């Protein structure tokens, strides 16, 4: 009996007193286990979506593959953890995943109160509304009294509240935990409106019985800068994830593509050479080899290629570059220089 008490006391102590230092060097942990554990959505076409064989693809998935390529030279050295909107931050805080890349909006409270850091923006989005074409609605301002379906634990829930309140409109919010149920309930007619990030609307519309009968309203009611998230307090890992994304943006700007990496490496543009590691010492500072940038582009391509492959005009989503174009082409994608 005494032994039992002692063991359980020790066990309890071990749980309660686990140090916080366990998360300190994510990069070392990742290198030791040989892969990156990446938190993604439970299936959002274009962003993070598994195919029938369980292979993940999408814009957010490519970010994780880029990180893996930078570390291991292999974009396949990633394992994915599908997370609901509600689970995602806890999964990151508790160390279950190394990086969260799940269409997550960068907001001040998330950045400052959850012990997390946003490592940039890989898709500039905004919240929109989808309705049935048969309802003959052309503006979100005609939605007073409507039932609105959405995901819990999202910025969406709060934005829609603000929007309806600001415009003095009534509404009924029906909030589900899982995106699949939101789609099913909207499809079954529980709601007049489906609201989420506009990119998400285009993606989820593909899952409806008859996508052609639904349309996305023109209003964008919020700013939704989506980006990868890491734990606060590990600057090396934070820098690494941040610069992997920047490298893809700079590669697009410098004309480096998945196909021409080796050729460009041998060329004489110093900016390109620093990006790809044939000049300078930009790897060791983030704990990597100098050719990390070349590995990233070889694995996933530049930002433009990532965009076109996953969500661009030639994909089922058919999203135009819009604000996600390079700054030099009138968009917001701007990579700080590597020097």
């Amino acid at each position, binding site marked *: 009996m005494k032994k039992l008490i002692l063991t359980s006391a020790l066990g309890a102590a071990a749980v309660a007193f686990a140090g916080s230092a366990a998360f300190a060097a994510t990069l070392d942990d990742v290198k030791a286990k040989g892969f990156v554990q990446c938190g993604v959505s439970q299936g959002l076409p274009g962003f993070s979506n598994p195919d029938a064989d369980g292979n993940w693809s999408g814009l957010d998935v490519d970010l994780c593959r880029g990180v893996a390529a930078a570390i291991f030279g292999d974009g396949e050295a990633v394992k994915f953890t599908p997370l609901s909107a*509600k689970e995602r931050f806890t999964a990151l805080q508790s160390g279950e995943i190394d990086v969260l890349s799940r269409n997550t909006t960068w907001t001040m409270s998330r950045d400052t109160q959850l*012990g997390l850091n946003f490592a940039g923006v890989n898709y500039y989005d905004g919240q929109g509304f989808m309705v049935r074409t048969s309802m003959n609605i052309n503006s979100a301002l005609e939605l007073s009294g409507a*039932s609105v379906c959405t995901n819990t634990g999202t910025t969406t829930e709060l934005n829609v509240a603000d929007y309806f309140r600001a415009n003095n409109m009534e509404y009924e919010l029906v*909030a589900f935990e*899982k995106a699949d149920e939101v789609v099913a309930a909207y499809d079954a007619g529980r709601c007049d409106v489906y609201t989420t990030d506009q990119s998400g609307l285009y993606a989820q519309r593909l899952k409806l019985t008859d996508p052609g009968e639904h349309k996305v309203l023109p209003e964008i009611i919020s700013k939704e800068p989506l980006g990868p998230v890491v734990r606060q307090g590990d600057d090396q890992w934070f820098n690494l994830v941040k610069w992997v994304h920047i490298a893809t943006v700079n590669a697009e700007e410098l004309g480096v593509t998945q196909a021409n990496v080796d050729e460009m490496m041998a060329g004489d543009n110093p900016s390109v050479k620093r990006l790809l590691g044939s000049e300078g010492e930009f790897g060791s500072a983030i704990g990597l080899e100098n050719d990390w940038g070349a590995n990233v582009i070889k694995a996933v391509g530049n930002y433009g290629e990532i965009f076109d492959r996953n969500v661009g005009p030639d994909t089922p989503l058919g999203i135009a570059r819009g604000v996600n174009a390079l700054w030099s082409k009138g968009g917001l994608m701007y990579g700080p220089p590597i020097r």
Partner: protein
Amino acid sequence: MAVTDVTPNGAGGDDDQAPRVALLNNPEIRGWIFQIVLAILIVYLVYAGWSNMNANLQAAGIASGWAFLGNNAGFAISQSLIEYSQASSSYGRVYVIGLLNTLIIAFFGIIFATIIGFLMGVARLSKNWLVSRLATVYVEALRNIPLLLQIFIWYFGVLRLLPQPRQGFDFGFLGLLNNRGYFAPKPVWGDGAEFTLYAFIIACIAAWALGRWARARQMATGQTFPAFWTGFGMIVFLPLAVFVITGSPLSWDIPVMGGFRPSGGMTVIPEFIAMLVALAMYTAAFIAEIVRAGILAVSRGQTEAANALGLRSGPTLRLVVIPQALRIIIPPLTSQYLNLTKNSSLAVAIAYPELTSVFAGTALNQTGQAVEIISLTMLTYLTISLLTSLFMNWYNSRVALVER
């Protein structure tokens, strides 16, 4: 080290002649010392664990503390029994609303599960082949399909079955039914309505007293009195009379179809309906088995004796079998009630805004204060469960066999 105690003070005529031992070796004192040391250790561990956790949260830059309960929540909730405004209501209020939504689904769930369960339990024992077979099929099907699946089936079934608001059923005064829910007329009480309430309360007390009197008289003289129907009549007609005399101070707020969905009246959302049906049907399957077992456990001799005394089968069941079966039924029934209450947390899957969904879900996400919110939620479920147990134990002790 000698333990012989030769001090004279303990010498008086003690019953136990055991030699006096050092305090530490006295089993009773030793027991106490162990208890105290253990208690101190546990308190220390809890305290140290708690402060360590806080330090870790602080170090990780995660907000903590209870201040968030006063902050404005800012999101909408589709069903609230008390006033809620997304413009000004706090997270504390969200907690209360979630709790009330949990309690109301559990309350109605328990009532319906009990009724269906008793009917099915009795039906399984029916001599009618078809009835007993149907009851068996019900029990076997419902308790062997996972509850979450049943919830989805009911929910999407309800949604598909009910028409769009514009093509919805219109029951006139009785309200509207469509896939946004059931929109019932809402009573609006006018001046003097409180007298009707008082009359109702007085009638209830009177009916109860009448029942006691009738029972006592029957015990003493053997004469029966139709106490049930008299009491029922009082409860119905006394308030009704007062209501009419005070000038019928009641009007109805009848829902009318709006642009998208009806407005006015009281709304029963489809999530509530689906959840209630799923919980009640599922739990009823278990209750039916408990009831069947309880009835079977009452020996046949009891029924035969009752028949020999000339009781017909109705009174036999009501007066002889069920009271004895209840003693066996109630303890496991309590567990089913607790299960139902805890299972109500699955409602988060179909957007019914109960505690787990709005507080441990949405509020947690917006504030990020997992430790506080989850502890409070666990404590709440624990309290609800303990209170239910307490009540059922009290009821059990009332029906339990009293040896005479």
